[in-house]
């Protein structure tokens, strides 16, 4: 039976469906991630860039083509669309997304947190997301609701990290993949020793920090490359590293909360990107990094984790967006944090360029 909808009915049907669609709860939104990468490339082609930064941008364009920045930017934006992690129970089955009224939460994005004010365990300096880490007085209840919905669910480790968007060199599940913490030589890698039972009851689960996920994706970006040689697939994985690093500049991702104006703050930043971006601010932040303990080392010997932690520590001090919806607060913190995202991207690209020109054994990340 064919049903013919009149234009008016079609419009009405479209409005009904749009009103019922839940909005996803992300970190920085897609456009923010995209712009942070594009701005990083613009910065590297500008007057304020150092010689290494300019060379790095040229190098990536040589291997990836003139639109490589768009490819990386899209990969960065799409990292929130990974479908590699599920919550399972016999009564609910396997669920990748949870709809909490008007919000949709992708379980795979719970790896994008870094609880910098908490003590890490099992080898991690800091832990990742946990329901118990959220600060008090949240206003909304997304953390508690999600906890109630996922109570006694198990985190499923089927499929491989990046499923749905990227196919890494090592096809392993996210739980195993994100144990990776970094490596100091080709023969000396570091892993967390988080036990399996951590993932049996989601309400008590402490996820691996986003620094681990970033290090894993950096390893994928650099694994299999030769001295001075890389290709588009490897370069594309840098987008995921940048996404995870950029998320760690958002206050809410450092305090394990889906509440506390999480969505509204990110929406504000997304809506005001042109006014929040400042090339001089990015330059200032990069200089601050190079003058810090982590940055004083040669960038080749700096770990991805240290780059992320430097900017995360600064953002952890900016707690105002957790408790205030004032325009000034959002503008000041948004500017600082968005420019930090761009600065991180510049540093990561430069590090990649330096690492590619090293022997495999000498690569530290």
């Amino acid at each position, binding site marked *: 039976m064919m049903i013919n909808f009149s234009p008016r009915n079609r419009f009405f049907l479209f409005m009904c469906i749009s009103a019922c669609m839940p909005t996803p709860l992300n970190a920085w939104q897609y456009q923010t991630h995209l712009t942070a990468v594009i701005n990083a490339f613009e910065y590297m082609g500008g007057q304020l860039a150092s010689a290494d930064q300019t060379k790095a941008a040229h190098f990536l364009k040589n291997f990836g083509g003139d639109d490589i920045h768009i490819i990386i930017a899209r990969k960065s934006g799409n990292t929130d669309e990974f479908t590699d992690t599920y919550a399972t129970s016999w009564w609910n089955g396997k669920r990748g997304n949870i709809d909490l009224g008007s919000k949709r939460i992708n379980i795979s994005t719970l790896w994008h947190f870094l609880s910098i004010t908490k003590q890490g365990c099992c080898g991690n300096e800091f832990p990742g997301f946990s329901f118990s880490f959220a600060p008090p007085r949240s206003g*909304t209840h997304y953390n508690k609701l999600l*906890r109630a919905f996922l109570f006694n*669910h198990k985190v499923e480790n089927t499929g491989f990290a990046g499923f749905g968007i990227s196919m890494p060199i090592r096809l392993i599940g996210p739980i195993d993949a994100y144990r990776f913490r970094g490596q100091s030589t080709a023969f000396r890698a570091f892993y967390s020793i988080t036990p399996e039972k951590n993932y049996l009851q989601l309400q008590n689960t402490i996820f691996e920090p986003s620094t681990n996920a970033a290090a894993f994706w950096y390893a994928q970006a650099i694994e299999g490359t030769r001295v001075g040689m890389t290709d588009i697939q490897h370069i594309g994985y840098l987008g995921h590293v940048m996404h995870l690093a950029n998320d760690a500049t958002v206050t809410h991702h450092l305090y394990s909360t889906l509440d506390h104006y999480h969505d509204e703050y990110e929406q504000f930043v997304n809506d005001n990107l042109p006014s929040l971006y400042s090339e001089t601010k990015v330059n200032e932040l990069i200089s601050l990094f190079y003058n810090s303990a982590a940055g004083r080392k040669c960038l080749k010997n700096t770990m991805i984790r240290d780059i992320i932690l430097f900017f995360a520590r600064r953002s952890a001090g900016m707690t105002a967006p957790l408790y205030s*919806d004032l325009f000034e607060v959002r503008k000041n913190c948004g500017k600082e944090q968005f420019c930090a995202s761009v600065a991180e991207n510049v540093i990561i690209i430069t590090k990649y360029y330096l690492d590619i020109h090293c022997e495999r054994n000498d690569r530290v990340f």
Partner: protein
Amino acid sequence: MKRPIKQYFCTIAKCVVVIAAPCFFTSTSISDSVLESPMRLNAPDISTIDTNCFFDTASSEDKVHFLLPASISLQFNRRHHDTEIQNELILLRAMAASLQRKIEFVKKFGTMKDDMLQRAEEALRELRQMQNILESEHFQSHR
């Protein structure tokens, strides 16, 4: 052929209007009261904090607690999300009811291991607890 479909859409439209209208009026009146709320004035002006100095001197825990009074404004601003609470309550009740039915079915006919059943019962208790929290908030905002 066309007539019944038209009638069908008209019925849906009427239902949407009937359901959405009270929500719309409730949310408008609550957000208006937020703007007039004197509590908002008590919140510290966070924009005046010298952020650079604040980063260096306070510990992370202190920073959170220092800003806690501002959450009063947040609590009041958030009243407009009362309709969201209602939606979440509907969702929670539906989930809890479905889980309860499944547990009862399994108890009656299933051969589920005890620990698996126990997990589900604990999850149901958690859903009910969350339902109580939301119901009390919903009740308070209407007092």
